[in-house]
């Protein structure tokens, strides 16, 4: 009896540290990127950004000596494929942090992340639903929501022309409609006249009716949502033909150099909002760091897009959350990662963004940029604008 007791005790003593070591698994990030499909332009850049930040962090010693593991899969920008990839990565690697590819995927997985998986989660989305800590405590976005981006643009308009006539021009999709209701409310509060709401399909070029309607309603500012390229280009080009003297604005996904290239000499007519600095703003310390890394690792790459910047920032926050959660009792768990995220205040990002404070699981700050047809770049025309 005594021998058996000793045997059990020695087994516990031998296996105890082993089981603790097993429980303290490596910090792991898994991501589902839209590497193919119509959002591949963001997925390819985004996956590179995540890999770069993880490599940088591991080169700098990881999380208290533990290397960060990073695995990803292609979600093709289809919800069912993305969810399958999420489940596959979960089953294979059991990560503490996940990154998703779309609004649809985020909405579908939201309840399960809260009740079952309990992982810190972000995605290629700026939907308000991912920035609602009461409903979805594990979800966050490292950017302003679409509604907050509308707020930044409307604040800029109020300053430039109080009481201006506004038009919302959006696609009849989830992406297009997301901030519209909030935009209507903000217009009322800010004393702006929302005189028109135009709808056109993504990629549509037959938009004469909408342009003439905006002209009849004397629109001063037209804000696009739900597009990356056309019909934005078509509207701006046709507005010249039909004598519509409005200023054209767009949110994050349409504030990219490709749009300026398509606009050509009309690039000066376009104003966009973004939460991040651009790759060519090389005087900023963080941009300098990204440029040096890119030059060293990918000598052929000449430009990094805003999608890269978004994922770069998100992954920096992931790494910071790992560092903070690792010091908490219980170590790196989903709940500790959420606490770590919400403890981030005035976190310096070397100019990639102003110092970050997480508020309601988003970062409600943006800057207004104007297109420049000569340099084919966006030039900042406002300071960082915060939404309360």
């Amino acid at each position, binding site marked *: 009896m005594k021998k058996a007791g000793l045997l059990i005790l020695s087994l516990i003593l031998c296996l105890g540290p082993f089981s603790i070591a097993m429980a303290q698994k490596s910090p792991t990030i898994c991501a589902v990127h839209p*590497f*193919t499909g119509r959002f*591949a332009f963001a997925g*390819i850049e985004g*996956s590179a950004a995540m890999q770069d930040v993880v490599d940088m962090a591991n080169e700098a010693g990881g999380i208290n000596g533990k290397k960060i593991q990073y695995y990803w*899969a*292609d979600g*093709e920008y289809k*919800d*069912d*494929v993305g*969810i*399958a*990839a999420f*489940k*596959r990565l*979960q*089953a*294979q690697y059991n990560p503490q942090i996940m990154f998703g590819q779309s609004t*649809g995927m985020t*909405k*579908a997985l*939201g*309840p*399960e992340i809260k*009740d*079952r998986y309990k992982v810190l989660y972000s995605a290629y989305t700026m939907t308000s*639903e991912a920035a609602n800590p009461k409903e979805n405590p594990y979800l966050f976005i490292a950017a302003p929501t679409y509604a907050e981006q509308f707020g930044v643009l409307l604040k800029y308009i109020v300053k430039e022309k109080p009481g201006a006539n506004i038009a919302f021009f959006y696609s*009849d*999709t*989830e992406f297009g*409609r*997301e901030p519209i209701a909030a935009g209507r409310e903000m217009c009322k509060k800010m004393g702006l006249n929302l005189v028109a709401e135009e709808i056109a399909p993504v990629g549509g070029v037959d938009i004469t009716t909408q342009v003439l309607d905006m002209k009849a309603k004397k629109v001063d500012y037209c804000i696009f949502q739900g597009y990356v390229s056309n019909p934005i280009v078509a509207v701006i080009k046709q507005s010249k033909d039909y004598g519509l003297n409005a200023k054209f604005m767009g949110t994050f996904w349409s504030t990219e150099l490709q749009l300026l290239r398509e606009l050509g000499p009309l690039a000066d007519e376009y104003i966009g909002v973004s939460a991040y600095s651009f790759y060519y703003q090389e005087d900023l310390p963080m941009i300098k760091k990204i440029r040096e890394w890119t030059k060293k690792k990918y000598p052929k790459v000449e430009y990094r897009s805003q999608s890269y910047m978004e994922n770069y920032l998100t992954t920096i926050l992931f790494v910071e959350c790992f560092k903070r959660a690792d010091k908490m009792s219980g170590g790196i768990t989903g709940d500790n990662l959420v606490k770590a995220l919400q403890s981030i205040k005035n976190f310096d990002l070397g100019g990639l963004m102003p110092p970050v404070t997480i508020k309601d699981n988003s970062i409600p700050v943006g800057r207004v940029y104007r297109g420049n047809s000569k340099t084919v770049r966006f030039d900042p025309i406002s300071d960082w604008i915060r939404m309360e």
Partner: protein
Amino acid sequence: MRCGDYKENYIKDEEIFQSRFVKFWLALFFIFLIVFPFIANAYMLYIANMIGFAVIGAIGLNLLTGFTGQISLGHAAFIGVGAYTSAILITKYGVSFWLSIPLAGLVSALAGLVIGIPSLRVKGLYLCIATLAAQFIFGFVFVHWESMTKGITGIHIPPPVIGSFQFVTEKDFYWITLFFAVLGVGYARNLVRSRMGRAFVAIRDRDLAAEIMGIDLFRYKLTAFAISSFYAGVSGALWVSFLKVVIPEHFNFMLCIQYLAMIIVGGLGSVIGSIFGAIFMTLVPEILNVLSDVVKSYTPGMGKLIIPFKQVVFGFLIVSFLIFEPRGLAEIWNRIKKFFTLWPFSY
């Protein structure tokens, strides 16, 4: 040793289980289906559930297009009608999940009846366009009838319950999917060998001749639409209860094409073809995903080239099947079966 396939009457010829071997293999397959959730991980069970929903939806479309010859491009809309009906009944009116499934099927069937009316006057490509209207009409309704569908925000659906047990995980839901898939396959297999099934085939082969023989085209064409939509509705209701959310973007035009591809690749006018097509269209892309992940991990930095290549392979596989066996996977299966039925004395 068997050297021929001899039957004495039509009843024997129409039997579902034609021999003891069929019964044996089917029993073995059922044992596998029952054991599967105990050996599979959450990912594999997720895929199994998705295959189950696809099987139900594909059988519905095959009854309409493969058996009755009525081409429909509105299948995704009917799946959507079922999905939204179930979601609204559960969340807004407190109806139990179990009751919401048949009700979702019935509402979809009603929608199918209405959309099927043009089939009495037009056929072929014209009917295609008429059913395509359903896709746009219902797509618009899902987005804009916000008081019921909650528009683009969508509806979050609680998991199904029996007593205090909640069907939360993929493993729990697998049993529900399996139950409805077996029920759906069983009903369809029996339907196609009934008077109604034969009427469907007669309409497909030559509707005028069928009418002269006394088949009521009005009744049978609309019945085919209703049954097909019922299956679609049940599939949609199960799908969104599994996902726990329904949003309009789930039911886009590509979903119609995907279902048509399932029944064409699987085999038009064949229940087992619908099953093969559903498995092929769901499983093969996943296998290619897993393979491309493996290749990617062994060739760092080559992801940009390898990952898009999987879609080329998938397209190539579909085209190859259609070139080498235009009658689909079901025909390949039949050939294999025939070979082994009389093996080693087949001639």
